[in-house]
């Protein structure tokens, strides 16, 4: 036999320097735009820095201020939770229901395209389109309600309604993405499994519970956790739609820290705030992952 290049257990063979050449862009990028910014961010959070001057080391003072003295910070954390939980709790099950409905519907490709439409649209347009539709006086919805003699709510100017509005728009915007994830998972289920369940006398509900749901559970876990992470850090919609108002009612932490950095020029405190939010997201994602995996057993 001819000598061959050494082959590993699971197949891939060594190719000398080639893999490193192929990976070079990724490695450079990972250093400059991942490792370096994370390190910089952590370092900044221990400083006070207005970018016109030089950073001065203040230790844990920024964290201490945000966590113990800044009421606005805690209010934004609460808003972030309301926004993310509302979005996940309604949005993910809704996407699952849609995927189910499409999976046996006629013309499913067209249904999917229609429900995917918002995902193709830039977030500024999403925000402004809904501003027009929800406008207190001239919006389509309140005009419609007025036509049947009802007085519509102040969708964007009432503090409670404004939060409900941005959550609903977020659900509307994101439904198509999770729907695709669930559709793909449902399509991977073999029709024969359904036929077998039917032959065994399982009704529709029982088939759903005992066959379909266990098979798509990984997709459900994936969609829940990624949506949660998205929801906790998402602020572009709110920035363009309500600007965090009215009276801070929709100001989420990511938006709060963004403004702290680029409007108030407090880079150290903003970095600390972003890190706190990141740690909260990380811990909660881990908990969710554990919980969803436990239930699978």
């Amino acid at each position: 036999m001819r000598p061959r290049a050494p082959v590993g257990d699971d197949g891939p063979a060594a190719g000398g320097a080639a893999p490193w050449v192929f990976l070079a862009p990724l490695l450079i990028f990972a250093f400059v735009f991942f490792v370096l910014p994370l390190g910089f961010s952590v370092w900044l959070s221990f400083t006070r820095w207005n970018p016109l001057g030089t950073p001065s080391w203040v230790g844990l003072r920024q964290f201490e201020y945000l966590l113990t003295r800044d009421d606005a910070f805690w209010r934004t954390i609460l808003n972030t939770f309301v926004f993310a939980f509302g979005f996940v709790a309604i949005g993910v099950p809704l996407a699952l229901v849609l995927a189910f409905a499409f999976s046996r519907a006629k013309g499913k490709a067209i249904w999917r395209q229609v429900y995917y439409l918002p995902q193709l649209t830039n977030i500024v347009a999403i925000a402004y389109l809904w501003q027009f539709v929800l406008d207190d006086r001239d919006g389509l919805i309140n005009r419609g309600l007025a036509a049947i003699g009802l007085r519509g709510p102040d969708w964007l100017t009432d503090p409670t309604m404004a939060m409900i509005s941005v959550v609903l728009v977020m659900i509307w915007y994101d439904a198509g993405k999770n729907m695709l994830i669930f559709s793909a998972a449902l399509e991977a289920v073999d029709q024969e499994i359904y036929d077998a369940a039917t032959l065994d006398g399982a009704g529709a509900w029982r088939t759903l519970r005992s066959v379909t749901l266990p098979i798509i559970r990984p997709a459900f876990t994936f969609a829940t956790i990624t949506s949660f992470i998205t929801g906790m850090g998402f602020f572009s919609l709110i920035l363009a739609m309500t600007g965090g108002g009215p009276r801070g009612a929709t100001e989420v932490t990511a938006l709060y820290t963004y403004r702290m950095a680029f409007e108030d020029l407090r880079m150290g405190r903003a970095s600390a705030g972003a890190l706190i939010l990141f740690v909260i997201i990380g811990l909660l994602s881990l908990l969710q992952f554990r919980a969803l995996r436990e239930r699978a057993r």
Partner: protein
Amino acid sequence: MTVSDPVVAGETAEIAANRRLLSGGTLRRQAGGVLKYVLLTLGAGLMILPFADMFIGALRGPADVYANPPRYLPAEPQWGVYARVFAELPMGRWFANSVIVTFLITAAQVATSVTAGYALAKYEFRGRAAIFRLVVGAQMFPFFLFIIPIFFILRFVPLMGGNDIAGQGGSGLLGTYAALCLPFLVTWYGVFLMRQFFLAIPDDLMEAARLDGANEYRIFRSIMLPLVKPAIATLTLFSFVYHWNEFIWTMTVTRSAPELQTLPVGIYLLSGAFESLDQKSLQQAALAVSILPVIVVFLALQRLFVASDFASGVK
């Protein structure tokens, strides 16, 4: 399905019982089917409603908005509004910037994803597992964490944009196309997607080509790359959509550089100019222009697009 199958000799009593059970529920199921389509149609209407509202609103003229009560449907559709957005707003500039930035980023993301995904799937080397963990793990880091540090990393690039060797004194790469593109040259998700696709391709192809004396780069270019074209199409489409629509980062670095603004950023930062009632139609027309290219490209490319590719991150 099974209900309509021809009767098979020797059918068990159990199956026959099931069949009776199923036909008993037929009426209810039909009613449920109709209800499903009614609900799906209502939902579809809700998906389209804001877009329809925008197209109608763009066509309203001053005569409609100042009428008492204001008219929802324009009495005379003002089609000229689409010419006006290009004449009265820097739409051409925004549009060109959107095209340039989206094209550069998409091309770079496809190139870096294909090469890195290939290396992670098809070679065995020290550190492969660690790099793969980085690719998976990095996807978990939300973007808001990077805005401040990357902004200043670009600001302090030595010897660029008037900076001295220590990165002080000038504006670095801020205010250049590089600032818009560099932070997006690699997409962790894209690398992951490409790796999954290359894993599915048998190693024998590489081995055979090696025995024929082909070098590693030729194997990649001539043999492996053509085999993942569908995945490349999917990634291209996703990168295009994402970066045509990208807002926060571009807004952050072009706030004071109007000549670099893209469509969403330009429309957002100019929103103060649309306060007056008869300017709303201009804003709605501008939004329509920002949305349409994506929908056209998506519909043109969607036959290449496989939903299951997108969801392959699930497994």
